């Protein structure tokens, strides 16, 4: 599908924080009320801008966590030495204003396929890279799509898995496979290591099914996983990537 023409405001607009919800001790979802919101696509992101009273400004980008048709929401992970994430996850509250720009992106977006194909969907998340992929899965549910979908979600521990309950309730057409890289709960029988070629080969849809893959997370994760998929025979144009940069050690 060709790039989307962006309707609505092209520059910064002021949004109001609605509800906030803590997903994990370090992760919070913020609902935003945006006047004249023109809608968004699954996988797009927002830029947010904060202005301190001395005029100092900081900008960051966050993936939209909600599906098209739902109110805009972003999910933010608090980085210990961050400047913006501690503010968004601990200080900001309902009724506060925040500047946003967006929605942004036409590459890392998913639309349910039409009637002519049901290419299975492969979603691969490293840490907070799950956020745009969750928007895609919510969208899939919302429109009643039967596209087979599989999510491989790499997280450091079970406590750090975002959207745990929701991911368990996605229904039969979606398989969620976790790999917990640092710490596993007692009795854990799932993957317990960083994603590697063997794991990717086990979870990836066969190439013969012409799957579409979306990989999102820290740069190291994305590059390794994308390379593994291409090595399995996935055409590069069927592997979409979005890098979030470096984070803490896996």
């Amino acid at each position, binding site marked *: 599908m060709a790039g989307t023409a962006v309707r609505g405001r092209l520059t910064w607009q002021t949004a109001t924080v609605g509800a906030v919800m803590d997903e994990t001790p370090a992760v919070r979802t913020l609902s935003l009320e945006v006047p004249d919101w023109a809608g968004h696509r699954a996988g797009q992101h927002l830029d947010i801008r904060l202005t301190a009273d001395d005029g100092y400004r900081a900008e960051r980008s966050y993936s939209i966590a909600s599906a098209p048709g739902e109110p805009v929401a972003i999910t933010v992970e608090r980085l210990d030495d961050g400047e913006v994430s501690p503010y968004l996850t601990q200080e900001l509250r309902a009724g506060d204003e925040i500047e946003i720009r967006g929605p942004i992106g*036409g*590459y890392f977006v998913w639309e349910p396929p039409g009637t002519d194909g049901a290419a299975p969907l492969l979603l691969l998340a490293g840490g907070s890279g799950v956020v745009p992929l969750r928007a895609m899965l919510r969208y899939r549910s919302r429109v009643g799509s039967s596209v087979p979908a599989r999510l491989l979600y790499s997280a450091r521990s079970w406590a750090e898995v975002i959207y745990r309950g929701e991911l368990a309730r996605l229904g039969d057409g979606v398989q969620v496979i976790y790999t917990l890289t640092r710490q596993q709960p007692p009795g854990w029988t799932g993957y317990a290591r960083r994603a590697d070629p063997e794991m990717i080969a086990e979870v990836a849809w066969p190439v013969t099914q012409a799957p579409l893959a979306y990989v999102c997370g820290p740069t190291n994760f994305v590059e390794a996983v994308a390379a593994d998929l291409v090595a399995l025979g996935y055409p590069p144009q069927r592997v979409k990537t979005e890098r979030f*940069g470096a984070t803490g050690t896996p």
Partner: protein
Amino acid sequence: MAALEDGVLDGNAIGGLLLELFGTEMTTAVGTCAGCGTVAQVAEMAVYQPKLGTVVRCRSCDNVLMVFVEVRGVTCVDLRGLAQLA
């Protein structure tokens, strides 16, 4: 110690900047590297953000494709490394 390359992003990260500068969604725009001829979508290009500015490079040959530097609210845009951007 994490390698510098751990922090390298892709063109998705400058979607907002390009939206502001070009007035339209640009992450799917296709660029041709003037150095090696590699054709890639902006979303796939390597993006370095050392805070002094934003430097976009070809993933194949590391040639500088685009540079954006903001000085006093005005952004200097250099697209010389692109033979074509459509």
